[in-house]
């Protein structure tokens, strides 16, 4: 194709791309703008910029309790789903057993299952075993729902691992256990970090599953959602802007770690569900 016709075709494409970006990001930009608007969510365009909403936010104790709850749940979920995800990924990568294809699909199912199904089924199970709903049940919900994320990410890392290295380790006298800790895990380090970051981010802003499983203590997204029912305040805009900043930072770090770890051939499956 000649450069001329490409540039002619390029112009409408450029406009189209710009419109798509505006459509996606304009609401986000408005949200951030309002968090600095002295007149609150009314009145566009904002005339007086202020940090007042952020000051109010930092003095808001219940909100910070919710942040702390979310952090606890996210940290626990990372530990739980990485542990179980690593075991599942190892089974998928190394073991051959009857029903492996089915196992693989079942492990990955939560990626495509609506959160409402996951949440509802977990709730029914917890009711069935007579468990009290609490942050702990939220942690269980996130941890299990996100195993699939950990599994896909770690499975990709294992596929990239040179098996000869593990054989070399055994050959040099290391037991399988020593080989796992001294060769396999260090080689998976980047995949573990990447999966951990992604799971942390996903857990931090999870609503659907959390909604079914939470007890008295709210996580941050549920706290925000609860407040919205009483009307939008710019304080919510402020906290949303902060969440957005942290999420973007984590996703950027995740992406960097992951591209370093996996190279260009990272499976598309790993995109955010």
């Amino acid at each position, binding site marked *: 194709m000649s450069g001329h016709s490409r540039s002619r075709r390029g112009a409408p494409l450029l406009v189209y791309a710009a419109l798509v970006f505006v459509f996606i990001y304009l609401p986000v930009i408005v949200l951030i703008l309002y968090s600095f608007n002295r007149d609150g969510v009314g009145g566009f365009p904002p005339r007086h910029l202020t940090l007042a909403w952020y000051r109010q936010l930092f003095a808001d104790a219940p909100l910070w309790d919710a942040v702390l709850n979310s952090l606890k749940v996210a940290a626990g979920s990372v530990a739980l789903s990485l542990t179980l995800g690593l075991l599942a990924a190892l089974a998928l990568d190394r073991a051959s057993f009857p029903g492996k294809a089915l196992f693989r699909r079942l492990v990955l199912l939560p990626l495509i299952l609506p959160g409402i199904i996951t949440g509802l089924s977990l709730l029914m199970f917890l009711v069935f075993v007579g468990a009290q709903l609490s942050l702990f049940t939220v942690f269980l919900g996130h941890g299990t729902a996100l195993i699939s994320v950990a599994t896909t990410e770690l499975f990709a890392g294992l596929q990239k691992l040179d098996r000869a*290295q593990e054989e070399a380790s055994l050959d040099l006298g*290391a037991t399988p256990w020593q080989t796992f800790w001294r060769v396999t895990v260090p080689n998976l380090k980047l995949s573990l970090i990447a999966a951990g970051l992604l799971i942390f981010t996903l857990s931090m802003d999870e609503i659907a599953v959390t909604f079914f499983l939470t007890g008295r203590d709210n996580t941050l997204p549920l706290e925000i959602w609860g407040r919205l029912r009483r009307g939008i305040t710019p304080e919510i805009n402020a906290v949303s802007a902060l969440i957005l900043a942290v999420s973007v930072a984590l996703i950027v770090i995740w992406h960097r770690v992951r591209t370093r770890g996996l190279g260009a051939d990272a499976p598309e499956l790993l995109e955010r569900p």
Partner: protein
Amino acid sequence: MSSVAANSLDPASAVLLEIRGVAKRFGAREVLRNISLNIAEGEFLALLGESGSGKTTLLRLVAGFEEPTAGEIWMSGERLDLLPPYRRRVNTVFQNYALFPHLSVRENVAYGLRVKKTAATEIDGRVDEALRMVKIEEFAAWRPSKLSGGQQQRVALARALVNRPRLLLLDEPLSALDANLRKQMQSELKALQREIGITFLFVTHDQEEAMALSDRIALLRDGALEQVASAREIYAHPATAYTARFIGQTNLLRGEILDGMARCGAIAWPSDDPGGAAIFSLRPEAIRLASDAVARPGTARFRAALEQQFFSGASELLEVNCSGQLLRVRVSARGPLSGEHEFVFSTADAIRVQE
């Protein structure tokens, strides 16, 4: 058969490794069939074969990464094939070295000693010694990825040798190196083996490399041992047409023996061998240009027309046509030739081989 006789070792040397009737099957595919092979203490044995001949599988059976479907492997009176790889006093130099990328050269070399909980002071001494032996002390702090192929090769050697194995397995260790480096590493490898006296089992598909390095060659073909003998023996007396072709260049003359005469096309000579169809291997350098017209006993002559001449320095290779039969003749360099010539060879050099 001559290959069986050649397989038996010099009785003076102690047997280190005994492979007894080993077979390996992957599903329906039979990769190794009834392999029996002894390796002597201190020997350098090359396991030679084309890709797919099963040589790497045999190596992996000895290392412990695969289990034999049938047969046993013994090392110094101990059943080896039932032990996991980490309990065998065998170490491997892998084809692509398989160095640990997250460890420095020094940590790579120390790995085997460290996992066996060797005392730290002893580790230091032995690692230094191993690094010195393969001449890579100066790179001790580097990561393997920063090293050239030849240097990585040395690290892999040091990492294996530091454990003082009874037997060192080398899986095509030189195949990733360029030609010059390869020659240099070959000579270093041979010197190193002599110096430390460890038994080497060396897998290669390169017959020249096998001939240059090893005390004996075990030639594998389609999962079975074709012939086991020293390089000189195997070159001078190939048991089969396959061996004759695989080890060095040769002319295969097909014909028959009838009434005490061997006849292959237009070439004939007296033979006491039992009659019937026969194949003879005649090395190109066994054929000479006949300088006189007198026939001597024990020689055969033929006339052939020159088709091609390839000059290669000290010698040249001629392709000649003897009544439709193409033969290769290696003669010392003598300048351009053309037309028909008379050639002569000693009939003792025409080795009768199996199909």
